[in-house]
């Protein structure tokens, strides 16, 4: 591979990895420094320097791009948290119906009381991965509960509907608040 070809390939790779706004200034900086080094030392030394810059810069620039696409990971974390809430709800229902003697109408408030701290914990853990994930989780729960309340044919007491509507999202928001109250990290 000729020197010119190697430079072109390395520059192309770096410009693909760099965030759009940083692409031109970054490549321009490298070309400027390469020309200075070629004059001051030799073309092969300048090329080695250039290649080293490309290899060491590539993972860092890729990371910047991924961090900028933070909303994707926020939605992902919220979806995982929602699945965790669903699993927790099923587990609570299963535990109450198998391990207690309470009737069908009684176990629902008990389930809500048991589920409330679990959703707070799930919201808190989701907030550790992505700061806004518990807020997205709360909004998702509001939407799902609203849809279920409007579409269900099952007769449930009004207080239960209101409690279910308020407690789930509230728990997620409390989890987010608890996470934001943590001491600042360096």
């Amino acid at each position, binding site marked *: 591979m000729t020197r010119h070809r190697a430079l072109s390939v390395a520059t192309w790779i770096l410009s693909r990895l760099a965030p759009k706004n940083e692409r031109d200034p*970054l490549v321009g900086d490298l070309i*400027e420094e390469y*020309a200075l080094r070629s004059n001051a030392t030799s073309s092969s030394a300048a090329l080695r320097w250039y290649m080293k810059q490309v290899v060491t810069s590539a993972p860092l620039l890729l990371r910047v791009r991924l961090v900028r696409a933070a909303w994707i990971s926020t939605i992902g974390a919220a979806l995982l948290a929602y699945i965790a809430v669903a699993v927790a709800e099923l587990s609570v229902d299963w535990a109450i119906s198998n391990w207690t003697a309470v009737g069908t109408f009684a176990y629902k408030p008990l389930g809500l009381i048991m589920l409330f701290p679990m959703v707070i914990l799930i919201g808190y853990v989701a907030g550790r991965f992505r700061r806004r994930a518990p807020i997205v989780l709360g909004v998702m729960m509001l939407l799902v509960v609203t849809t279920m309340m409007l579409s269900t044919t099952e007769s449930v007491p009004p207080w239960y509907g209101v409690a279910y509507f308020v407690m789930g999202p509230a728990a997620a928001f409390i989890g987010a608040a608890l996470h934001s109250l943590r001491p600042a990290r360096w």
Partner: protein
Amino acid sequence: MKTRDNPLGSLEHVVLLAVMRLGSDAYGMTVRREIESATGREISIGAVYATLVRLESKGLVKSYTGEPTAERGGRAKRHFSLTADGKGALRTTHEVLRKMSAGLKGLQPT
């Protein structure tokens, strides 16, 4: 706690100082050179840009794009400068370092 009240990471600190030292000539490659000549440690241009982007998202530096030039292959420079919050963050970090090192023996320059 505002961003400017949080102490800076070590690379953020060094990059902000380099931008401040360079003044109107602060762009990616001059920042990299300034850090290398002052610290004697090699740093990649990618690390400098990643840090500058992070500092800009925190509101500690601001940037503008200059005119494209032939010696840069027709590409423009992106100039950086400190914001008021950036200067505040530097002051906070220096104050923390001053307090932490106060009274410690063996830290004076030799």
